């Protein structure tokens, strides 16, 4: 689960991680008020959407308006807020459709001496959290890793004992920090690492991490995401979820216990199992089609779930045909076909439906399909299924 920058900064501040003074605004008046409260000299107005690349992003309605802007007067604050609020920001990460901006974060300007990068993620190979730092703040860390890997510093964090002073000293030395900045690092970095483990984060990224002229560490930006599987022990964090930032059909699927990801193609897929669902997309592509979605209906597919899955798939106007690919294991094929047929009646199909079944009780399931009298195209194996569903579109 991702949260907004202003929410992340509120949490970080409580955890003792220094962030700039900032005020949230959801109207031009509030933006002006925030500007005045922050000293009335210099402030940054930042559009709040989950996607990155806001500074370089532009609004659909105002092609010259960036998503992050420096303002020096109340008038400027108002003008920018008026253009940003309610408008659609398109960045490198939002896709062409962009995201509507409903909230702004107004922050006091800082006396910046240098910009660093700090991020915490779980390193799969190390089997624990790792703090990643770089002197190249402000740049995408993937780009730094690609262009100058020697500038990436990795430091394993013990999830139980936290980041150790000696580790911070080493990082400070590697980053060439001044004595004052190194002292700030000793306060800032262990708290950042602790925030990650205390809140079951999957990502905490501070980019840039500013070193002020006085040598203080300040989180100028903050990107935080949490482990969905751990939300049962962080119920308070669930309130930070912003459904406006999520795809409507993906939210709907989640509520039905389905795993769904919308894609751009024309062939909808309904599959049991995540690996097989991914492979089914690959199979469609391999045979010249384009998958419209990833959908894992899970191991215990019942009528309600299959019906909802079909409805979600068919709600996508791009879908011109649907492929059902089931490998019945413990969940027998005939049980799944029963659900399929019931769902078929409830949903009302207007596009071709190709069904491939394999596994337990497949013979019985196939004859049920054949005897149903419904307009369902049966496939004998994976390749046959892919060919038939691709052909059903071009025909």
């Amino acid at each position, binding site marked *: 689960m991702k949260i907004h920058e202003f929410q992340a900064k509120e949490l970080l501040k409580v955890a003792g991680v220094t962030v700039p003074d900032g005020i949230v605004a959801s109207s031009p008046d509030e933006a002006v008020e925030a500007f005045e409260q922050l000293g009335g000299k210099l402030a940054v107005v930042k559009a709040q959407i989950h996607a990155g690349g806001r500074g370089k992003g532009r609004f659909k309605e105002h092609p010259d308006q960036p998503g992050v802007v420096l303002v020096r007067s109340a008038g400027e604050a108002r003008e920018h807020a008026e253009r940003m609020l309610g408008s659609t920001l398109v960045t490198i990460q939002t896709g062409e459709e962009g995201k509507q901006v409903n909230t702004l974060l107004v922050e006091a300007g800082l006396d910046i001496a240098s910009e660093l990068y700090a991020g915490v993620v779980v390193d799969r190979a190390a089997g624990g959290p790792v703090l990643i730092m770089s002197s190249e703040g402000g740049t995408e860390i*993937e780009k730094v890793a690609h262009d100058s890997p020697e500038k990436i510093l990795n430091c394993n964090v013990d999830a139980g004992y936290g980041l150790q002073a000696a580790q911070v000293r080493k990082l400070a030395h590697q980053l060439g920090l001044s004595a004052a900045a190194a002292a700030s690092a000793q306060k800032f970095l262990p708290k950042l690492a602790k925030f990650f483990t205390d809140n079951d984060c999957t990502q905490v990224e501070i980019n840039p991490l500013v070193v002020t002229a006085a040598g203080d560490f300040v989180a100028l930006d903050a990107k935080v995401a949490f482990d969905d599987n751990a939300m049962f022990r962080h119920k308070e964090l669930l309130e930070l979820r912003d459904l406006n930032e999520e795809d409507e059909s993906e939210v709907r699927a989640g509520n039905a216990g389905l795993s769904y990801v919308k894609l751009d193609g024309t062939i909808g897929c309904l599959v049991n199992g995540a*690996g097989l669902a991914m*492979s089914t997309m690959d199979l469609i592509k391999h045979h010249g089609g384009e998958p419209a979605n990833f959908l894992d209906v899970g191991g215990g597919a019942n009528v309600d779930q299959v019906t909802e899955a079909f409805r979600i798939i068919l709600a996508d106007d791009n879908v011109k045909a649907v492929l059902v690919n089931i490998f019945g294991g413990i969940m027998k094929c005939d049980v799944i076909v029963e659900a399929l047929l019931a769902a078929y009646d409830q949903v009302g199909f207007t596009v071709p439906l190709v069904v491939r079944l394999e596994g337990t009780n497949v013979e019985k399931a196939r004859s049920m399909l054949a005897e149903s009298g419904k307009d369902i195209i049966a496939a004998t194996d994976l390749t046959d299924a892919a060919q038939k569903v691709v052909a059903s579109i071009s025909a």
Partner: protein
Amino acid sequence: MSILVNKDTRVICQGITGKTGLFHSQKCREYAREVRTDSDVFVGGVTPGKGGQTVDDFPVFNSVAEAIEKTGANATMIFVPPPFCADAIIEAADSGIQLIVAITEGVPTLDMVRVSHYLAKTSARLIGPNCPGVITPGVAKIGIMPGYIHTPGTVGLISKSGTLTYEAAWQLGNIGLGQSTAIGIGGDPIIGTNFIDLLEMFENDPDTEAIMMIGEIGGDAEIQAANYIKDHVTKPVAGFIAGQTAPPGKRMGHAGAIISGGAGTAAEKMDALEAVGVVVAQSPADMGKAMQEAITRKNG
């Protein structure tokens, strides 16, 4: 021979009084009784607070330690709900269980960090979590896979996914290639046993003649496996990577299946495997064929 599961394996189920735990314990017992008659493989279960009960002839114990003492169990299959799974794994390892198969899906990643730290101090081996389990066809299965799709044979099968493992076993079986042991290692970011551990075991197992490995997007375990294969594996290897069409930044069902920052793509993993001589199937329909080709290439 085989790996992980053999004729001396005795299994308990942690979470046996839950609906799913009992159902799969019954299925595993059925499978073992069908394929061999010498002794019972599934010997009981554990649910704290419910010791002394019996569910469908399975004795239930309060703790893993008690279950070991009474039944001689040396392996466990875990079905407890996600919030309690890490603790169940630690209890099993602490009690001396050697093989821990965690089926549970949805375990918090940081719980698995704690588990990894703990297991490093013990001799226990963990498979999973979020996996279908382990089967040595004709001997025993510990997991949720349908037994009949796996035939005994000489291919070692390793996979991150459940149904895709079934698909592979099915395709292999159709061309007469049974499996020595098939393992679903799980689709989470942190798992107990990785490709490399199992590649090493299969390489050393005299009854395994070829290896099939099925990976997916996310992380770099497949690339590390490729490096390992280059230096240490002499047996023919075939592979498949799921998620060639997956978009970056989106989690594809499995917690670990995500391309982040442009890394962990199917293309880079397929290239790495092909570069070390692994025959990589381009289509999931060709996994069996790829294994056949790898065997022919090595022997011919």
